[in-house]
Structures are given as structure tokens and as C-alpha cells.
């Protein structure tokens, strides 16, 4: 086939392998590689169970024994009585897992919980396939049709035995649950490209059309109660309980469709002057009839001075390119059907009694509709330079400004309107940044060295909010009794931390007595030495919600990364690390509603009359001054970290040996992921991002006990035949 003007390729690859047993949950991750370049394709799903267990671990009192082998060691008779419960959880060796005393609410002994969840697992298989047809009917013209699919199958099996964890946490019936889901996404793209050159003028035209559909998903799950099993191993759906002891549910996803038309013109003169213009029209199923489509043009121009005659070839500057571009892109990340008023089920209420009682299904308008909802647009201006010096030193720098208008959000609405917030093009924002990348590659004899480093700096500013809205508070980042902890306002950064200003610690009663409002009233009448002094920003006679201000930025100012490749003879080493700097993390690991919850060891440095040089307020029951119930900088910590993500050392066997073994290649390697992290942050993991697992909803850097990333060690073989 090769060598002919028509080439037909069908490439279809499916590679799946299960990996990594982790803690008590079996993690199955699928990894699919692209046959053409060997790089991973998206499609790895890793779900982390156990956030609440992680939180339990820190909040449980250290006085709760991990295990109890002799009940006589428990002196409190009321506490000892708890172990009489036949469903108290026991370790394999017969000893009891310690049962927390009163005051821990649903916090349970994490080991007891793990014991009862052994075997439960989540699984997922992703199958990704791509195929394309390419045709070249006349020279320079290329027609190409691509289809891609991603099929995900995922679910979980969980058995919960009858168990007694504490006075307020127990399972009275055993349950066996299984969920099976699948999701299909597929894309189709058709493009026509035409390449033509006249002398040094090179043209490339592209016309294309695409169709992208995702979230075509289906799921079913079922639960059996009271099956005769005591653990996951003995549980089976072949036990058939009575109909009353079976429940099931199912779900359908809502399709999300985008279709696009696009065209592009590329022109260059002798690879010295480069121009590209692109325009695309994208349509989304998430917007109403008048706003379905968005038009997104972009332009770029480049100049390569090193190809100019007036810069002679030299050994210092081998290559230089200056780039400038301006382009608009669109985003439709918002709930489906936000543009049209809908009624939804689920507002149910029972009428009647006894066996005639019926739970009636109520329907009510789901949210207010926003028929004007439209594409969020980001206009980006970028000026950059690429250069190569001395053959082996590469340098790239970029300055950019991204103006995002009509950010799609569901800002909170006042509760008095009675309906949930509606989707809005709620805000405009500007991000300005600089990015640098430096690379160095050198080969000396048997020695091979490659270093790549990059850093980017970002400044974020909100430029506009909806009319009538002075600020937006993100409810998803509310923390226990502190209420909302972030606020977004014009002129500030997105979702800045918003709380009381901490003026330090009161060192004496005299200081407290001197802290008064204009009328002479004590501002903090409940304070004692060792408590936090809060700023009275509005100058009235109380410290209350109106004294809050912006106290920290959750978005890193800088992110950076470094990759080092070293090769010596048959040995190779790869190290890759990255980090962030300049953000604050809200450290919310401790449960405020459990006064006896454990503390981290930092509390040993709390203020006492003899330990006054500290920022940690005194330890006191009920916290009358609100040291921890008024959100101030005591909750914020620097989010700076550097993490060595990958370290791999490999050895490739000499060809003489592999030839004997009839192999093309034999390489052995050892590898560690997440080997170490340099940080002052005292939570589990400073790398939070935005995730529900972290607990911050849509807000960066809110840590409510996100499950930390595991450190892993691998030994591997690469074998090629």
C-alpha cells in the first residue's frame, strides 16, 4: 500500500491492563495508548473512596483504643457495655476494634470500617478507538474522515454487614449493592486540506466539520438486604431475599452534543513570514435556539528573523521566531437545559394511611430558565518568542492576556425567590501571565543529558459581574459553621478567601480591655489572653460578619516543572517534578462540630502564658471568642509545594544478550511515583486542585480531608520481540 497516492489506514487499538492494589479498595485503571505516537490517551478513571475515613483518622480521639483484646482494660462501665453489642466489629484475631465514646457522632474507628468493607471495590474499563479514512483525489488535496469513540464501563460492588461502630453509627441490616454503568462518547470529523506552493509562497487551506457527542450513559443498580452473608467474600446475588428486601434504581444520562464547522488558511513565505487565520462555528445542545452557535475567529502571525539575509548564519543564535496571535474560543461547560424552563419530579409527599398510603410524585419547576444563556468566550492575545542557542539550548517565552466574558456559572440566588439558582453568563475575568520554558540537551560520549524546565506566572482579576450583584459567594465552599469562606468581587481575584482579619493574639487582659468601639463598648467581651484579636474593619461597636475582608488567594501565582533525562551507556534515568507557589490553602481537616475531635500536633504550640510567641490561639473548651468559628487566617496556610512526580532508573541489556534470547529489546526499570513532596503545608496533600474529593466544590485550595495521592514503587520490564 505504501508509496501509492492513496493510503488507507485503519488503526484500532485497545489495550487494557489492570493495575495497583491500593489500601482496601481495588483500583482498576485502564490505560490506552495511541499506536501512532505511544502517548497515553485520556481515559483513565481513578476514583478515590474513603474521604470520610481519612477524616475519621484525624478527628477520632486518641483515647479511643485501636483494638481492645481484653474488655477489662476499659474502666468506664458504660463504655465497656458498648462492646456487648453482638454486631461490634472484631479484628481477624478476635479482638475488638475500639469503639469511640460519646461525642464523635458518625466518626467511626477507621480500622473497624475498613474491616467491614474488605473486598468492596470500584472498577472501570475504558475502551478508546479511533479510525480514519484518508483520500487524495488530486495532488495537494487531502480528504480525511475520522471517527473516534470512547466507551466506558464502570461500577462498584459493595457489601455492608450488620455492624455496630458506635452509639450513633451502626448498620442494622446487611446490604449488598451492585452498580453497573456505561457511557459512550463519540466524535466524527471530516476535513479537506489543500496544500499549494508558488515559488516560496506556501498555502494550506482547510475546511472541516465535526460532530462530538458525549454522556450517552445508562446505569442500573440494585441492593439486596438481609442476605445470609457475613462478609464480601460470602455475599452473592444468587441469594434471593423477598421482594421487600430488594431495591433497584436506574439512570439515563443527558446527551451533550457539539457540532462545528471550521476553516483555516495558512500561509508562509519561505518559512520566514507565517500567517494563519481560522474561523469556526460551534453549536452546542446546551444553549437555546438563538444562542446555539458561537463564531470564533483567530489569527496568528510569525516571523523568523534567523532566516533573514541580514542575520548571517552563526553558532550563537541558531533559530529565532517571534509570534503574535489573537483568538477567541468558546466554552459550554454548564448544565444541560439551563436555557429552557423545565419541571422536575422529586417533590413527593405521602397521603393516606396504612396499606392505602401512597407517596405521590410531585412536580415543580426545577430552576428558573435563562433563555439568553450563550457561549462563554475567551479572547486571548499572545506574544511569544522561540529561540535556539548553541544548537542545544532552547528557550521559549510567552506573554498572554486572556479576557473571558460571560463565564458560565450557577451563582447562588436569594432563597426567598424559592427556586434554585439559574445558569448565567455571570462574570467577566482577565488572566494575564508570562510563561518561560528552557531546555538543554547535550551528548558527550556515552553520556546523554536533557533538562527541561518551565515556569508560568499568572495574575487573575474579575472585571465584571451581573448587574445588581456586588459579589458572588460560592456555597459549595462553605465550611461547617463558618458559612461561606470565599467571595468573588470586581477588581479582586476569583473566589478569594473572605473572612476576619487576624490582628494577632491578645497577650493580656489589659489589651482586651483597651480594645473598644467608638461608643466605648468592649469589642471582644468574651476574649481572654491567648485569643485572637479580630480587626473591627467597619468601625462600629461589634465584631460581626460586616467586618470581614479578603484574606487570601487560592489560585497559585506560579506553577513550575522540571524534567531531567540522563543516560549513561545502558543506564537511563528520568526525573520529573513540579510545583506551585503563591496560593493559600484552607486547611479544614478538623471537625468543629465535634469538640473532642483530635488535633494535629501543631496545637502543642498553642498560646499559653509561658508560650506567648505563637500565632496559634489558646486551647479552650467551647471557644467563646470564636477563634475557630470565625474564619480568619488561622485556617490558611501557604500552598507552596514541590513534588517529585516520577523517578525512573532503567537498564537496557546489551544487544549481544538480547540477540541470543531472540529479543529486540530487554529493559528493566525501577520507578517511583510521588517519591517526595517538599512543603510546609500540614494537611495530607497540598496538591488539591478543584475537586469534590477535596471538598471545595468548584473552589481551588479548600481541603476538607481530600484523599492524599499514594506513593508507589514499581519494577518493570520492557520486552520487545
Amino acid at each position, binding site marked *: 500500500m505504501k508509496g501509492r497516492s492513496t493510503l488507507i489506514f485503519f488503526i484500532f487499538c485497545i489495550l487494557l491492563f489492570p493495575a495497583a492494589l491500593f489500601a482496601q479498595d481495588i483500583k482498576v485503571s485502564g490505560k490506552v495508548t495511541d499506536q501512532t505516537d505511544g502517548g497515553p490517551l485520556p481515559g483513565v478513571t481513578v476514583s478515590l473512596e474513603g474521604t470520610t475515613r481519612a477524616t475519621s483518622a484525624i478527628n477520632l480521639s486518641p483515647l479511643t483504643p485501636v483494638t481492645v483484646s481484653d474488655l477489662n482494660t476499659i474502666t468506664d462501665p458504660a463504655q465497656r457495655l458498648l462492646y456487648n453489642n453482638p454486631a461490634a466489629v472484631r479484628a481477624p484475631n478476635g479482638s475488638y476494634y475500639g469503639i469511640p465514646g460519646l461525642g464523635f457522632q458518625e466518626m467511626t474507628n477507621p480500622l473497624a470500617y475498613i474491616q467491614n468493607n474488605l473486598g468492596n471495590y470500584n472498577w472501570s474499563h475504558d475502551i478508546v478507538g479511533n479510525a480514519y*479514512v484518508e483520500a487524495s483525489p488530486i495532488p495537494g488535496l487531502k480528504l480525511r474522515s475520522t471517527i473516534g469513540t470512547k466507551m466506558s464501563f464502570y461500577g462498584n460492588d459493595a457489601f455492608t454487614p450488620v455492624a455496630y461502630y458506635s452509639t450513633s453509627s451502626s448498620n442494622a441490616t446487611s446490604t449488598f449493592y451492585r452498580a453497573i454503568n456505561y457511557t459512550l462518547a463519540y466524535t466524527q470529523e471530516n476535513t479537506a486540506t489543500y496544500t499549494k506552493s508558488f515559488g516560496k509562497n506556501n498555502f494550506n487551506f482547510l475546511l472541516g466539520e465535526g460532530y462530538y457527542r458525549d454522556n450517552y450513559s445508562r446505569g442500573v443498580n440494585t441492593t439486596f438486604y438481609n442476605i445470609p452473608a457475613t462478609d464480601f467474600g460470602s455475599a452473592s446475588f444468587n441469594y434471593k431475599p423477598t421482594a421487600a428486601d430488594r431495591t433497584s434504581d436506574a439512570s439515563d444520562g443527558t446527551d451533550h452534543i457539539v457540532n462545528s464547522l471550521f476553516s483555516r488558511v495558512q500561509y508562509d513565505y519561505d518559512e520566514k513570514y507565517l500567517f494563519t487565520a481560522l474561523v469556526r462555528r460551534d453549536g452546542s445542545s446546551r444553549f437555546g435556539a438563538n444562542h*446555539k452557535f458561537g463564531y470564533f475567529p483567530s489569527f496568528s502571525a510569525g516571523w523568523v528573523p534567523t532566516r533573514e539575509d541580514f542575520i548571517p548564519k552563526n553558532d550563537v543564535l541558531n533559530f529565532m521566531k517571534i509570534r503574535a496571535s489573537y483568538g477567541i474560543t468558546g466554552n459550554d461547560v454548564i448544565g444541560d437545559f439551563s436555557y429552557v424552563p423545565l419541571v422536575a419530579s422529586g417533590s413527593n*409527599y405521602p397521603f393516606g394511611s396504612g396499606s392505602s398510603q401512597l407517596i405521590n410524585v410531585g412536580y415543580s419547576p426545577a430552576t428558573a430558565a435563562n433563555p439568553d444563556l450563550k457561549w462563554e468566550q475567551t479572547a486571548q492575545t499572545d506574544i511569544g518568542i522561540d529561540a535556539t542557542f548553541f544548537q542545544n539550548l532552547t528557550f521559549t517565552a510567552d506573554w498572554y492576556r486572556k479576557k473571558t466574558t460571560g463565564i458560565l456559572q450557577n451563582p447562588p440566588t436569594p432563597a426567598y425567590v424559592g427556586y434554585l439558582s439559574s445558569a448565567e453568563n455571570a462574570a467577566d475575568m482577565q488572566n494575564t501571565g508570562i510563561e518561560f520554558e528552557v531546555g538543554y540537551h547535550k551528548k558527550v560520549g556515552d553520556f546523554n543529558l536533557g533538562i527541561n524546565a518551565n515556569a508560568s506566572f499568572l495574575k487573575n482579576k474579575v472585571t465584571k459581574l451581573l448587574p*445588581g450583584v456586588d459579589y458572588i459567594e460560592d456555597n459549595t465552599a462553605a465550611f461547617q459553621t463558618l458559612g461561606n469562606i470565599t467571595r468573588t468581587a470586581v477588581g479582586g481575584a476569583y473566589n478569594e478567601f473572605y473572612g476576619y482579619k487576624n490582628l494577632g493574639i491578645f497577650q493580656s487582659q489589659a489589651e482586651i480591655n483597651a480594645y473598644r468601639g467608638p461608643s466605648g463598648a468592649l469589642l471582644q467581651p468574651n476574649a481572654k489572653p491567648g485569643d485572637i484579636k479580630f480587626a473591627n474593619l467597619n468601625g462600629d461597636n461589634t465584631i460581626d460578619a460586616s467586618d470581614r475582608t479578603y484574606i487570601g488567594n487560592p489560585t497559585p501565582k506560579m506553577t513550575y516543572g522540571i524534567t531531567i533525562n540522563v543516560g549513561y551507556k545502558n543506564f537511563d534515568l528520568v526525573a520529573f517534578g513540579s510545583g506551585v507557589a503563591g496560593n493559600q490553602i484552607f486547611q479544614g481537616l478538623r471537625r468543629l462540630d465535634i469538640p473532642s475531635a483530635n488535633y494535629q500536633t501543631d496545637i502543642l504550640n498553642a498560646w499559653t502564658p509561658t508560650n506567648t510567641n505563637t500565632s496559634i490561639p489558646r486551647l479552650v473548651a467551647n471557644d467563646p471568642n470564636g477563634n475557630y468559628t470565625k474564619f480568619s487566617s488561622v485556617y490558611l496556610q501557604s500552598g507552596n509545594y514541590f513534588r517529585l512526580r516520577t523517578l525512573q532508573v532503567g537498564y537496557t541489556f546489551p544487544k549481544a544478550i538480547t540477540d541470543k534470547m531472540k529479543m529486540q529489546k530487554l529493559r528493566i526499570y525501577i520507578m517511583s511515583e510521588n517519591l517526595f513532596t517538599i512543603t510546609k503545608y500540614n494537611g495530607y496533600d497540598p496538591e488539591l486542585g478543584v475537586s469534590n474529593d477535596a471538598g471545595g466544590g468548584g473552589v481551588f485550595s479548600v481541603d476538607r480531608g481530600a484523599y492524599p495521592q499514594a506513593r508507589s514503587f514499581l519494577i518493570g520490564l520492557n520486552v520487545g520481540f
Partner: protein
Amino acid sequence: MKRNISYIIAFAAGVMLLGSCKKALDVNPQDRILVDNYYKTSADAFAGVVSVYDQFGYQTSGLYDKVAIADVASDDQLTGGGSPTDLNDLQVLSHYTLNPTIGPQLYLWTRGFTGIYRANVVLQKVPGITMDAALKTRLLAETQALRAIFYFDLVRFFKNVPLLTEPVPQTDLYNVVQAPPTDVYALIEKDLIAAIPGLPATVPAATEGGRLTKGAAQAVLGKVYLTEKKYDLAAAQFAIVNGTTPGQPNTTYGYALLPNYADLWNPTNKFNSESVLEIVHSSTSNGAWSNAGASEGNLLNIITGPRGYSTVKTGAPDYYPGYSFLVFTKAFYDFIHYDPRNMATVANLDSLQTNGIANYSPGYDNTGYFLGKYIGRQSDKTTTGQIELNFPQDIYEIRLADTYMMEAEALINSGGSGSAGSRAYILFNAVRARVGLNPIDVTMPNIMNERRLELAGEGIRYFDLIRWGTAASVLAFKGFVAGRDEILPIPQTELNNTKLVQSKEWGGTK
């Protein structure tokens, strides 16, 4: 040949899609129905009204409801629970340390205004449906009465609330202002008066129990008038509910006091003759911890149960172990100790434990005296789903003993006699006679005592204390501040970006 085929494949794939752009973006909304296609049939109208009732029975995922709030705000009960901050919203109310950010107010506010919004949608959409006229009238009357009930709770708890009679358009989200309380009361009266003729005198309990009746709306209206100190009007409404011969069944509505007080708290006794209006619960909705508030089960049943309860001797009460909230104070126990209603009202775990009959783990602020009326029982736990969240016991919004005593209160306050032979006397003593107590004259102090005993733990006393003006003195020991704690603060988040103003009592200007 091969070459031609590949052209055709590529070209066909392209053509197939090029023409289909706009239409290809249409997606089936699944369970969601366009509002424009809804509110067309009587079933749609009914489902709309059900959604209003849903808010009437709404409990928060934080495991409390209106009754729990009013209970802990009273002098007779403490929040209890597992620790000083367990169900913190209730703890701060119980100790009167709440503030605009922390407390149960956002739950109450949301319950009311979501209900009002849904009612306003029904009142806007249902009149246009072509359907049976009598059914339409009834559904609209139920909705209007429910709207009045939501406003009555809101205006009592918050005093300064917006008065919305139709859905707020999106363009006016932030332009809403509060109305004078007198305007709110005027709407409540108007809604109830308009609703009463359209409501049925009785409903078949087995299938429609829990739906609004004439008597229920009249009882609410009477209570509204009583709160407004319009005693004549109040007495007139209560008289219709209580019937011509108190103590005997109401011949129109069938209301009568249950002969045995304890039977009121048997969960199978839904919609009994004493029940005027109740919040319906069910053990079959499969409520789960992922959204406890969406359960139709009674959450009071689990939070009031003693922690770690276990029976020792046979014959011990079959309480389901719970979270030990809403415990009675020692003072209240001493007050009710020798009253015949003691056994049905108070679960005396202190005595059960001392006598070796049952065991439990004392919670925070433990007194040993639990709210027996609402503790979940092993015998009525659900057979499917999460036991804790699916208890079936209903909660009385209004029952006849309450309306008897409210009529008596209205009568003597409008100058009527409370002595033997008077209607007030007959009403009041019918309540006492039911539990075997001798008749006494109707005086305000006697009414205050009797209501405290008869209605203990039912979420009524706090409102009584406010209505009688005695809250400041009675609740002082809990930290109640006169001139502040008669109402709850407007939730802080409702002041964000809006034209709402905090009440004067809470440092605002309204």
C-alpha cells in the same frame, strides 16, 4: 477500484453530517419536562399541588424540622445530642447564642419560601388548565391554604419578610423588599378565607388523609387571629372546628378527643378523630443518608431516641436507639411528674436504667428524660431502606385539644367567662377530663399550665410564650434576650446583594 471506494466512503461520511447541524443539537431532556408542555391536565395540577405539600413536610438533611426548632427554643427542652455542637443549629438556638450566620433560620426561610414559590406557580398555572371544575377549585384552595401556612410560620419566626404572591421574575431577583408584618397577616387571612369554601369538610383517611380540609384551614385561621389578638374572630373560627358541644364529636367534621391520651402517639393512629392537620410521614420512601432531607420518614423519631439504647428485662419499651436530642429539662419533669400525661410524654430513661430494665449512653446535656411522644420504636421501623430515616409516625400541626384550649383562651380574652357552665369552661375541662383531671376555672395561668402539659414537645410552647408575652421571663435562664430573641435573624446569606434589611432586633434597621 479500491481507490474509488475510499473516495466514496470519505465523501459519504462528510455529506451525511454537513446538512444536519442545527437539528443534530436537539437532545431529549429525559425526566425533565418543558414548563410550556406541562400544566395541561388535572394530573399535572395534582402533581403541582403535591410539590407544595412536599415543602409542608420538608425536613432538613441536618435532621431537624420546625417542631425540633420550636422545642429547643422553649423552656422545657434542651438540644442534647452527642456533644455541645451536635446539630449546632439547634444548640445555638437552645442557648440563644445564634447569630445571622449560625442557627436554624435558613432552613425555616427556605422551607417557607420554596413552598410559597411552588404555591405561586400552581396559583398561576392551574387556573388555565381545562379540567374538572370542582377538582380545580379544591386544588387551588389547598394551595392557597398552604401558602397561608407558610407565611404564618415565616412572619412569626422572622416578622420582616418579603410578600410574594407570584413567582419572582429573574430580572427582579435582587429587587425584592420586605413587607410590613400587617400586610403579611392580611394576605394570610385573605388566603385562608378564600380557601375555606373550596376545601372538603372531610377526606377519606385511608387514601387522602393529610390533605387540607375546611376544619384544618379554619383551625389555622383561628390560630392566626389568636396570634393577632383578634379574639372574637379567633373564637368564631375555633367554634366551627370544635363543634357545638365540646367533648362530643363535631357533627360536621367528625372531630373528637381520643379517649386515651397515649393513643395519640401510636404511629398507626394516623388521621384519628383528634387530628385536625398533620404532617404525613411514611416508612416506604427508602430515604437514604445521601439526602436525608428527601426522606418521607419522620426524622424526629430517630433524633429523639436514647443513644445506645438496649433492653435488659423483657417488658422494657422497644425504643429504637437514636441520638438523644430534644431532652426534657429536670424542671419540666418535676412539673409533669404527677400528671396523668407523664408516662405518654416523657420517656424516663433515668428510671429505666436505675431499675435495671434498660440501658443507654447519656448524651450531652443529658437529663434522662426523653421525648416519649416521638421516639421511634422497633415495632414501627421500616423493613426496607435505612431504618434511621424511615420512621412512619405523623406529626400534628394542629389537634383538637389545642383548638379547644385556644378557643377557651380567645373567649376569656374577649371578655367571656371562664367559670363553670361557660363554653370556655366546657372546652377547657374536656381536655382535662380526657386524662381524668377534675374541672377547674379557665384563667390565663391555668391555660398556660394546661397547654404546657398537654402539648409538651409538640413544637407549640415557644409560640405560646411569645404570644403571651412571657418568653423574656420564662426563657431568661437560657440566655433569651428581651427585644432580640422574640424573632430569628434574617439569614445572613439573604442579605448578600439584596435589598433585604436585617431586623432591628438583630442590629438592623427594619
